[in-house]
Structure formats: C-alpha cells, structure tokens
C-alpha cells in the first residue's frame, strides 16, 4: 500500500501533502483540547499497536499474505481525530525507521491511510451504524464495511493521482484502474475481516474500550454501554456525502474514463496494445473487431465483480461476525468518559 517516492509527480505529492497537512493539523488541534487526559497515551499505544499489528501476517495463499492496515481499527478505538494522528505517526515512523514509503509521498500516504482511513472510515461506520442502531452488531458491521470501503477509496484515489502524475492525455488508465480495483477489493476483504475480528474480540473482552470520546455519551440499547453520539446533522451529511463519493469513485469512474475517450478508441487501443505486448502473430489482427470485445467485457466484469461481489462479500462477513458475537454481553452501566 505504501507509495514510494518517484511514483507520483512532485506536484501531485505537494498537492496531496497540503491536503493531508490541513487534515492532520485539524486533528492535532482537536486532540490538543484533550491534553492531559488518557487520549495521549492511548493514541501513542494505538499507533504502536497498528505498527506491530502490521507485522502479523495473515497467509492467504502460498507466497501471498495480507496484513492489517489499521485506520478503521484506530478510529474505532480512539476516535477519528486521534486515529488520524496515530496513523500519521505510524506512517512517519515507518519511513523514519525502515524508509518505507518515501518522504515526499508521505503526504499522499497519510491522505490514503490516515485521513481516508480514520476520518473516512469513521464516517462510513457512523453512517452504517445508523441502520443497525447503536448495538454491538452495528459497531462490527459498520467497521467491517468501513474497512473495506476505505481500502477501495484509497485505491481509486491512487489511480486518480497516478493518472494526474503521468500525462493524462496520452495514457489509458482504465487497465490500471481495473487492476487496482480488483486487486484491492481482495486486499480490502482481508482488511475488513481482520478489523472485524479484532473489534469483536475487543467487544467481547472489554466492550468499554471502544470509542470512548470526550463528548457526552449516550447508552447503547440492550447493553447499557455507551458510545459517543452518532452524529449531528453535519456529520451525517458529511458521511452520506462520503459514501456517495465513494460509490461514484468505486463503480462509475472506470466506465466514465472509458467513455470519455469514446468506447471505440479504447477498444482499438487495447487491441493494439494487446498485440504489441504479447507479440502475437499478426494473424490475430484480422480478428481485430472481435478480440477486444472479450477484453473489454472482462474489464467491466472484473470491475463490477470487484465492486458488487466485494460489497456482497463484505456484508456477508459483517453478518457472520455479527452472529458470532455472544447474545448477552456482560452488563455494564457506565456513564462513560473520564
């Protein structure tokens, strides 16, 4: 997931860096209001935890293994502001200790993993949670969906940045996009699963640890426990906006990008390229109108599958995890906060 220096153009790095700087400064500003309470050590610990958690490999197949990214997890435990700061520090330390992920592209990585991960993840979770009430199930489903959505959003955003970095007019990016989106819908599933399992683990063992924030809390039905309030009108609007933007990014832009050059042109390009790369015998050229069709079809199928199949899988996962949670949690009656 880490973008290295050199992959994006300096201008794009600067632009994304500026956005991240703003977002992180705002997070720090919000965090400063809670100076002296347990948020500071908790955030430090969360950052260390995400860092260490990323070292645990979850094998997928023979040589491939996935690991936690942690933005949503951090936001669920310490809230969006501290979560964003924690993820930023994780990325910074990864650069400073391992030189993972570049200095100039630090801002981009922060945007992808800290800002989208924590802020975006938090708003998606809050949005989803509204449909399930503030129950434990809602928290798990919300964070599973949020984990998947943030990975997809980051992937889509990366494609956009990549396109902006390298002469947008001359290069057809729909293939890059297809590849990124289908690949990341898988990575996202892993992330969703790990986040979901970790959060249900916490909900089982220490429900009071999740998302305690300085704000006044209201109890969750059925548990007597409390999370911080779902939302004011503004957050709700923001969340809805984010989800819609995400949907557009994930599902519509591949088609949009193919359409904007005209379908014909894209198909033609793909055909030629196919020929050039694989060094196929010229005979194939005669089937020029036929060959590209399956390619194009494959492409939209892949993206649609990545989108729709991924969404379905995520909801199935969320539902499963929700089911696994014990029906009767330990009874707590807390007025939350410090």
């Amino acid at each position, binding site marked *: 997931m880490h973008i290295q220096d050199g992959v994006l153009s300096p201008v794009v790095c600067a632009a994304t860096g500026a956005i991240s700087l703003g977002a992180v400064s705002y997070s720090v500003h919000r965090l400063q209001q809670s100076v002296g309470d347990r948020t500071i050590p908790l955030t430090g610990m969360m*950052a260390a935890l995400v860092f260490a958690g990323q070292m645990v490999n979850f094998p997928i197949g023979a040589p491939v293994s996935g690991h936690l990214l942690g933005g949503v997890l951090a936001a669920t435990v310490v809230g969006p502001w501290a979560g964003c700061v924690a993820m930023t520090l994780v990325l910074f330390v990864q650069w400073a200790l391992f030189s993972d992920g570049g*200095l100039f592209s630090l801002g981009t990585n922060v945007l992808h993993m800290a800002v989208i991960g924590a802020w975006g993840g938090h708003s998606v979770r809050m949005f989803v949670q509204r449909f399930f009430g503030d129950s434990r199930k809602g928290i798990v489903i919300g964070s599973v969906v949020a984990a998947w959505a943030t990975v997809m959003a980051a992937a889509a955003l990366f494609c956009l940045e990549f396109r902006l970095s390298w002469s947008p007019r001359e290069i057809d990016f729909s293939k890059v996009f297809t590849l990124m989106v289908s690949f990341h819908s898988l990575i996202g599933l892993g992330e969703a699963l790990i986040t979901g399992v970790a959060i249900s683990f916490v909900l089982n063992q220490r429900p009071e*640890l999740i998302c305690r924030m300085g704000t006044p809390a209201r109890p969750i039905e059925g548990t007597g426990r409390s999370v911080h309030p779902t939302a004011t009108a503004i957050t709700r609007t923001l969340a809805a906006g984010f989800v819609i933007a995400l949907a557009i990014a994930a599902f519509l832009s591949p088609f949009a990008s193919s359409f904007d050059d005209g379908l014909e042109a894209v198909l033609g390009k793909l055909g030629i390229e196919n020929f050039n790369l694989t060094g196929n015998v010229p005979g194939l050229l005669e089937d020029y109108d036929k060959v590209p069709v399956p390619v194009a079809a494959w492409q939209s199928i892949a993206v649609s599958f990545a989108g729709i199949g991924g969404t379905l899988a995520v909801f199935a996962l969320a539902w499963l995890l929700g089911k696994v949670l014990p029906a009767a949690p330990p009874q707590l009656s807390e007025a939350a906060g410090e």
Partner: protein
Amino acid sequence: MSDFLDRFGRGQSMCHRWPPFVKLFAAVAMILAATCAPITHGPLVGIVACVIFFAHTLARIPLRYVGRRLLFFWPTLFLMAISLPLSQAGQKGWLLFVTILVRGTLSFSTALWLVNVMPFDQLLATLRRLRVPDVLLAILSLMYRFLFVLWDELDRMRTARSARLFRKPSLWETWRSAAHLVGRLLIRALDRADRIHGAMLARSWNGRTRWIEPRREDQR
C-alpha cells in the same frame, strides 16, 4: 528482537557526527534532486546517483545491506511502475517506467542513508527544535517506546506459540491464532495505555511535556 532497526545508527563515521540539521537537509535536497531530475538528462541523473553513492561510502554503510534492502524494495516499485507500459504501448510507457524505477531507487537509497546516520532519538530532538507540536512529540515518543515493547511481546508470543506447535498448522489454524495474537495484543496494549496514563499522572503530568538533555558536558 527489534534491535536490528538502528544497527548502523550508532556507528561512528563522519556523517554520523554531522549536526542533525545538516543531515536532514542533505537528505531532503538529495531526494528532491532525485525526484525532479528528468530521466532524459542522463548526466544529471548520473551526478545525483554518484552523490548518493558517495554519501553511503562516507557513512560506511555496507553495500550488501543496501543491496538487500533494495532487493525487497524493487518488487513493490516494479508492480506500480509496470502499469504504465501496460496501459500504453510504445516507447513513452517504457520511458516512464524507467523514470519511476530510477527515481524510486535513488530516493529510497537516500532515505536508507538518513535512517542509518540519524538515530531515532536524534530525529526526535531535531523535530522538537523544528517546533513540531508538543502533543505530536509526546505521542511519538510514547509510540516509539511501546513499539518495541509490543513488538518484542509479539515476537515472544509467536515463539511461545511455535514452542508448543509441534506440526505445521493448517491455514485456518494460522488465521485463528494470528487473530488471537492480534486481539490479545490489542487488549493488553489498551489496558496498558490506561495504566501508563495512571503512571504519568502519578508523576504530576498535566499534558505539557517538558524535555531536558541528560548532561550537557558528556553527551553521547
């Protein structure tokens, strides 16, 4: 153990003794040059590469180490870069591909150099002087310590697991126990954060963190 991280950070070369600001700015300048130099100007790129190579020799960073790190680094960079020639036929795509590889490699080696001549505590002190907000620094130094604690803990839990794991586990078992490890680490860490908070308050912490140097005369 996590000590391999700053293996060379404690070395004693000329570069290690430079003032931290000099090192930081040298690194930033080199990365800037590496990412901005157009690939078509061969000599320019060559000069940047030579400077970086020279910096590595000055700092006495073993070439084998750099090579090993690069070996792990290239595949990911390659994956990102290869999408360019894949999506565009002809020379232009390959040119961009090479651009990304060269820029990535050069800036990565520069970062390696900085990591190796600048131990983390020095970096922290430099950030402090650069007036990075206190809250961030406080969180950062806490994170740094617990990073190692958690990491070692994780490491030992894994070893303890393998000490009682007398056969090759199935995929499902691996997943399950990896999830348990993460879950357990998570809860212990969060609980510990509470106790740390108590320990900090017990020593009169009020959110403002003050810093001093151990002893001016005989700093390391």
